């Protein structure tokens, strides 16, 4: 509604009743049964007791997604790897596949050198040029969840049992893991036996000797 024009500062052209009529408030009132419709006030927000001292912008969550770990070009399924650290250091081991976490799935085979189906990080491994044929091996079922630690159930202990440590801590391998090991190794060992000396090679551990220069070695 255009404001009433002014005659001069503070003096409107239209009178009070004239302006009322012109604005049509009477029609709105009639439409709403005699009273001007009151807009509902939004529920008063309770004033927070404390305001933060500084005006800080909330940090936005990062949208960065890490890239999948790149597999070294020297490593392909069937490559013999030398483990450089850990319980099995020096052991020569057969590479099966790369898991989604980026870790390498690896097996001894267990019968040959005692290394079970295990995960190993790429940086703790040297790839040799020796390859084993693993076309007969099925590694579909292995993923990172297979290797997850079992959640210990918290059994409420009586006072006497509180001091009985190791009572529930049995570290036996579940039978299905032993079976999986046998299944994978059966095919592998056949392929290994086909190559002369490969079995003893895998059974022997790698070690540096006097006079060895790792930076000059070709693996």
């Amino acid at each position, binding site marked *: 509604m255009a404001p009433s024009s002014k005659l001069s500062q503070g003096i409107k052209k239209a009178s009070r009743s004239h302006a009322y009529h012109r604005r049509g408030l009477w029609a709105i009132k009639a439409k709403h049964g005699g009273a001007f419709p009151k807009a509902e006030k939004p529920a008063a927000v309770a004033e927070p007791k404390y305001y933060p001292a500084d005006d800080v912008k909330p940090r936005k969550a990062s949208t960065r997604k890490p890239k999948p770990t790149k597999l*070294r070009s*020297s490593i392909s399924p069937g490559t013999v790897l030398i483990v*450089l*650290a850990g319980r099995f*250091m*020096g052991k020569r081991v057969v590479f099966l596949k790369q898991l989604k976490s980026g870790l390498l799935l690896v097996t001894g085979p267990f019968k040959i050198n005692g290394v079970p189906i295990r995960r190993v990080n*790429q*940086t*703790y*491994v*040297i*790839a040799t040029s020796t390859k084993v044929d693993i076309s007969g091996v099925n590694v579909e079922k292995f993923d990172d969840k297979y290797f997850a630690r079992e959640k210990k159930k918290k059994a409420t202990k009586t006072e006497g049992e509180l001091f009985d440590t190791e009572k529930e801590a049995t570290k036996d391998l579940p039978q299905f893991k032993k079976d999986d090991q046998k299944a994978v190794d059966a095919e592998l060992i056949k392929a290994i036996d086909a190559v002369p000396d490969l079995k003893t090679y895998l059974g022997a*551990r*790698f*070690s*540096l*000797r006097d*006079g*060895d*220069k*790792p*930076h*000059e070695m070709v*693996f």
Partner: protein
Amino acid sequence: MVKGRTGQRVRLYARGTILGYKRSKSNQYETTSLVQIEGVNTKEDVAWYAGKRMAYIYKAKTKSSETRYRCIWGKVTRPHGNSGVVRAKFKSNLPPESMGRKVRVFMYPSSI
């Protein structure tokens, strides 16, 4: 090599000698140590070892975590000069007793 390892002992590290700290004639900078790795004689050879982890191992009188052996971890940072000496930084600076003693240069993180 520790914790009652039965069976074969394998060496998966190169031996290195701690020569001292990075220094000039009359100032020394203890945050960086100089290490001579066995068999490494040129600047180009050092490239293979860049980034490899090293451990300075020493014995103490008291046992911590069941063993008297203690370790300071570090890594090879860059070559030092033309003749195969290497600069290394450790988690905490090496003590002066380490000069002339051995350090283990591991083959990881590996990129072969």
